[in-house]
Structure formats: C-alpha cells, structure tokens
C-alpha cells in the first residue's frame, strides 16, 4: 500500500507507527512537500492480516528472529519448545532488566518469552540502553511493531 498526497502529487512517506495494544494499528504518513499528515488506522483483523504476512509496516529495524511468525502467533505452543541461549558470547553482555520489566516479561507466554526477551535485549544494545524498563519495553514495542509482545 502507498499513500499519495493528491494536492502535491507526491508519495507520502512513513512517519510513525503506534500500537495501542488493543490489536489495532495506527501509522502516520507525511507528504514530503507540503507536510500534510494522514494516519492509517487498521482494525484488529486488518492488523492481524498484515502481521500474518510476516512484514512490518514502517520497515524492520531489527533482524527477523528464527520462526518469528510462528513463535509470535501460535497460542498453543509448548512453554519448553525452545532452548534459548541466554547470553550469546559473540553479541556481548545482555542489558539488565528492572524488576518491573522482568515481571512484565514473565507474563509473556513461555512459548514466545525467549524470543521477546532477545528482541528487547537487542533493541536495548542497539540503542545503548543499559537497563530495560517498562517504558523502554513500551517504546521498543511501538518502534519495532511488536503487536502482542
């Protein structure tokens, strides 16, 4: 999908993505010429359809994880299906997690928890964030387009 500023006859560019947490999605686009902004709002079904394709509106900022679509979407996965490497030596030390962030991470189903932890940790490392807080998780979730994570 693309958005066109009809008045300027210019293709609008991605500006910002927001995930309110209710299964909907809001994506803002801006006209590079006149600066006019429009927002695309999708309902839960439309959001799900896009995420089912394994694509992220606004583009990917972290590499796709192995079996990301499966692990992020299967509701009946075994908690111990995957053995997660907690600290790959080649990638350096993991950032710290505050107790509140750990508590929230603990509410993520075991089937996908390891992948979610890895994604947030890589986000923190990429942004030079030494400690993951609940606020960092919220920001990362929106920036990375992690619906349901």
């Amino acid at each position: 999908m693309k958005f066109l500023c009809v008045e300027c006859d210019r293709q609008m560019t991605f500006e910002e993505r927001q995930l309110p947490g209710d299964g909907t999605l809001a994506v803002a686009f801006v006209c590079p010429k006149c600066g006019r902004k429009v927002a695309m709002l999708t309902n839960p079904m439309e959001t799900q359809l896009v995420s089912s394709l394994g694509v992220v509106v606004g583009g990917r900022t972290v590499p796709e994880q192995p079996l990301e679509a499966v692990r992020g979407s299967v509701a009946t996965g075994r908690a111990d299906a995957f053995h997660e490497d907690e600290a790959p030596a080649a990638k350096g030390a993991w950032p710290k997690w505050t107790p509140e962030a750990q508590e929230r991470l603990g509410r993520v189903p075991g089937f996908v928890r390891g992948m979610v932890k890895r994604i947030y940790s890589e986000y923190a490392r990429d942004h030079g964030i030494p400690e993951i807080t609940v606020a960092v998780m919220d920001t990362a979730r929106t920036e990375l387009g992690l619906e349901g994570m």
Partner: protein
Amino acid sequence: MPLNIRTYHDLNEPDRSGLLDQVGAQRARVAERMAPIGRVIAVMSGKGGVGKSFVTANLARACGRTGRAVGVLDADLNGPTAARLLDAPRTPLTLAGDAVVPATAADGVRLFSMAQILEDGHPLAFRGPQAESFLWRGVQEAAALREFLADVAWGPLDCLFVDLPPGLGRFSELADLLPAPPAVLTVTIPTLESRDAVRRALRAAVERGAPLLGIVENMVGGPYAGDAGDSLAQEFGTPVLARLPFHPAVGLWATLAGKL
C-alpha cells in the same frame, strides 16, 4: 470532475516500509536455505488417509540407512504425525544463529514438525481476532510453512521430503515459496474414490510445472479394490514405483528408495 490520481505502479519514490522488499527478503531466505539441498520432494495425494506420512517416514528412513542425508518437513500443520513416525526426541529445539536446529530422528533423518512445538493434545491455534479468523488463518499457516523452510538449519541434504496434508492448498503454497516447483511423489490407495481425488492433485502439480517422480500405491491386497495406481500412471505418463501391502517389509522401502 474526477481527481487525476497516479496509480500504484506510477509511484516509485523511496518507501521506508518496503513491504514488497520485505516479502522479497523472505523469499530470498527460503532460496538461500534450500540451496544446499539436492532435491525437494513433495509427498502428496489430494486424498486423506492414504498413508502419505507413513510412506514419507519409512522412505526417509530407508534413504537414511543407505547413508543419504535426508530431511522431513512435516507440512501437515494441523495434524502432524511425522515426529512420532520417525521417533523424534522430545527435547527442546536449539537456536543456532538465524535458524532452529532440526531434530535428528530415526536413521539420522532430520525433522521439523509442528508437533515439536505444540502442546500435546492441543490444536494449532493462533492468537488474533477469532471472529474473522478465516480471513487470516490461511496466511498465517503459509507463513509457518515459509519459516519451516527458511528458518530451519537443514544444512546440506541429498533430499528434503515435504509431507503434505490432504488437499491442494499446501502444495500451492510450497510451489509458490520454493525457487522451483518441487518434485512430486504421489500416494494413492487402489480405490476409484482415491483415483478421482489424486488425479486432481496430479493435475495441479502438472499445471505448476512440478516434475512427477511416480506413484506409490498403498494398502494393496486388503479390502480396497481398484486400479488407481495403474490408471493414474497411464493418464499422467508416470511410473508406479511401488505397490505396498498393509505391512510392507523393510526391503520394499529400500527398493523404493533406490528408485528415487
């Protein structure tokens, strides 16, 4: 007066979302993972209950016993049986870089199946708005198949068997995802009903340009009468590779493996 709006294909400015590029990258990952695999063989039928998984598992094991490097991708996401048929270990799957390491099952067969990641006794269910799940569930399953191809560290294989569920949909998805259509090994039972269902599947395979390896007629000599194997072979110009009784001897699998 209608607005003068350029069409989708007229707009070529840089797009940060790059949705088509993301899809292209997904396809490239599949192609990269399949590159060291000598041949992908889709085991299909179009009819349920003819023994596709049974044939797949035993054929893969026979290949493994002869020293060939083989894998089985269980593409029956909703009724996976390959893990049990291949005596796969029930240990957590290991992540290695950008991929998941497949299980090593009986006779060295590498395996990946939805059964390895689902809770025992639970159906494959996806998180999402259930009210309209028919709209996105098929897309989600196709994405799972794509990841089973692209995100599993199959490594160099002489052959990857893809055990397809009944019907034609999963074959179409597989053919769409692979760089080239897979070779097709067809399983039928002797009956007229099976022949009718399997011929539709074979026609679909031919129309996709998939090479036909031959037909395995299963459950021969029992209560199922008919000549589906010969009839289909004649119609599609492909050989009957094996006629398997209800309890095939190990040697029959070795003979069949030698024909592939």
